[in-house]
């Protein structure tokens, strides 16, 4: 814990205020993403409520982090923002245009505005394409017909992610590159179409600890240079501080706490956030013998979520007949620090 807050001060969050823009780039409004379950391939058997009522605004050149354990719906949220899934209910507005209404060329235009950095860099690159081909594909698809222009943009992007000399890499296949280099190619590909928003899905979780910081710094530098908005998705709070300003904590398809990163780390409000912070790894030899408090139980079923607060079966502070009966609204016990928990009513 100490280590986290200690580095956070010297990290990204400090100068965030200057970069914040007033205008909203992306607005997610009461978003629901449900997947229908089928019995025997046709009968209806309920829904998996992967995302169940998430609302937030993202401003130009702002970074938010979405934190949560596996299966909490953060990937579904991200994929819906990338227009890979259709929302079941609710809207996503990008520069005041509703994503649900976009079709054909408009949708492609939207997709070119949003870059995608994936978790597994090796899987994210087609194994049978050279680096050059991988980088050319998005440009070909988005109608950049001039070969010289493609080549120039591709070289520029490669240099931005510090893959130089560029010619050493262009004809290589992904399996000839190291994990860090692969992730740089993925980032270069996301940057090629000059997006306004980058969605980064656990971009460093599959990398060696030694290259994680480099990649995070690279993303940070690119964000500063191009005034990018970034949605950074992770399960690991210790990497959030590198370049995030605001954090959402997601649990069972819902945002349970929204706050600035420093506030969250200094003063976590939701019992789930507390547990998550307690579980964050610290490079301390004493930890090997120390017992950690892990909330009992498992994440709830998303098909039949618990009534009331979804965390109540695991919550140490559960209030009977309230937490298990009524869904908590968002309370604001501190300025800019929202929490969905009855403890703060």
């Amino acid at each position, binding site marked *: 814990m100490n280590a986290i807050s200690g580095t956070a001060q010297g990290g990204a969050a400090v100068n965030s205020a200057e970069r914040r823009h007033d205008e909203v780039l992306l607005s997610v409004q009461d978003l629901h993403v449900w997947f229908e379950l089928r019995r025997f391939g046709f009968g209806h058997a309920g829904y998996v409520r992967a995302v169940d009522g998430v609302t937030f605004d993202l401003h130009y050149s702002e970074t938010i982090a979405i934190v949560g354990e596996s299966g909490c719906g953060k990937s579904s949220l991200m994929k819906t923002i990338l227009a*890979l899934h259709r929302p079941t209910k609710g809207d996503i507005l990008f520069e005041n245009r509703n994503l649900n209404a976009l079709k054909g060329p408009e949708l*492609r235009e939207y997709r070119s505005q949003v870059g*995608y950095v994936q978790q*597994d860099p090796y899987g*994210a690159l*087609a*194994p*049978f394409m050279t680096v050059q081909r991988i980088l050319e594909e998005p440009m070909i698809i988005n109608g950049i017909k001039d070969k010289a222009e493609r080549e120039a943009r591709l070289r520029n992007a490669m240099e931005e992610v510090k893959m130089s000399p560029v010619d050493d890499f262009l004809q290589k296949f992904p*399996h000839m590159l190291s994990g860090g280099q692969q992730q740089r190619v993925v980032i270069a*590909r996301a940057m090629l179409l000059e997006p306004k928003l980058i969605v980064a899905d656990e971009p460093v979780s599959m990398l060696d600890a030694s290259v994680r910081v480099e990649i995070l710094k690279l993303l940070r530098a690119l964000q500063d240079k191009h005034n990018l908005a970034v949605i950074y998705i992770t399960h690991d709070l210790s990497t959030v501080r590198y370049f995030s300003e605001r954090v959402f904590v997601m649990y069972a398809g819902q945002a349970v706490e929204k706050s600035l990163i420093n506030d969250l780390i200094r003063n976590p409000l939701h019992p789930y956030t507390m547990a998550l912070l307690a579980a964050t790894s610290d490079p301390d030899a004493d930890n090997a013998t120390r017992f950690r408090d892990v909330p009992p139980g498992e994440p709830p079923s998303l098909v039949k979520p618990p009534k009331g607060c979804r965390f109540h079966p695991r919550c140490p502070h559960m209030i009977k007949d309230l937490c298990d009966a009524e869904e908590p609204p968002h309370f604001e016990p501190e300025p800019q620090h929202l929490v969905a928990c009855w403890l703060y009513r």
Partner: protein
Amino acid sequence: MNALKRTFKDISQYPSAIAGVVLILALVALAVYTMFAIPYSEAIRLWRGGEEIWGDYPRLAPPAWTNIFTKEKQPSTIVRDSVDVDSGVTKEVKPIDETMTDVIFTYSFDYDADVFPQEMIVFMTAAYQEKAPFVSLFWITPDGREIRLGEVTAKASETYRFNQDERLLRRLKGVAPEVALFADPEQETPTVLKGTYQLRIAAITFEENSDLEAKFVSYGTVHGLAGTDHRRRDLTIALLWGTPIALAFGLVAALVTTVTTMVIAAVGVWFGGVVDDLIQRITEINMLLPFLPILIMVGTFQSRSIWVLLLWVILLSIFGASIKGYRATFMQIKEAPYIEAARSYGASNWRIIVSYLIPRIIPVLIPGLVSGVPAYVFLEASLAVLGLGDPVLPTWGKLINDAYGNGALYNGQYYWILEPALLLMIAGLAFAMVGFALDRIFNPRLREV
């Protein structure tokens, strides 16, 4: 391009694959040569031709090179034509009076085989207005005996068959002329008397412009490189033309079915839902349909053209069991993050199928395709053996079918079956060897990625 070069380099590591490639190239060269040397229409004309084309060829003669393996030397066919000046025929014309003329042909030839010929025929063509020339034939043996054969009035087109001349048979005391005329009179068992024989044809023409030409054929018991069949046809034609047909049938069927099947599987997996269901149900129904009986019905009721059958083979194979295999692989590939990335930067459905799904499966496809070729080559042969072969085209399967229909094995005419069978085996072996090597080359790489 680099991948191709690498594949070739890898292939060179396998001696069996090199042998296979050499065999395939040899077959392709043979096919190309055949198509230029004997054009398609010419091949069909020859193969469908009767006595007018194959008259000078022996019936059911094994190839000439079988002499290497037999103690008794078999005779080849001897043809002496008076039209052909170089063939050792002399023609003397002696006018008797104003209208009548003596025309004397002398045919001489060496006979040094140990076996009697199959048959002997003289073909005559005469030119006359009203009265046809009168012809007498004489046989002169190496030891100087002169045997009168027979007399015949030469019509515009006259054929004198030695063994059908009743009077000659009576004169030879019932011994077949091809034996009696060549036999050594000193020996008790009929033995060939070797040496130079002569046939003299003496004709009298009765008109001023009347003339006569005559061709003598002594049919051997061996012939050429490949031998002949029951209709005197040279098997070389069918063996040669079988090559391009087998290659075309095998390659077209293998290529079209493999590629189409793969594309259908990819489309089904990518679009999912109703499309996938429909494709899977069609495949399952098609898998239950009996393949061969349907082809037999097509052959019986619709057409026996090899190209119609090829179309049916392709149609029935497109929704084949391999769709299931490809589908399983595609299902896995479909979930790959790079496909998701492609969608996120706006790749269309078809672009994803063609540029992202299909290239991943090509390593599995190529060995399968190459190994699939012989299956279709054999299928074509099997259909022909079942009597569903193209009635026009000479193919390897047709040869086996003809041989079978004429009791070739029962009669000991092994060459008739073994020659096409050997070519079929070579074709199968060549593709199989390359296919196995490709499998070994591609599959570890597949596991690695």
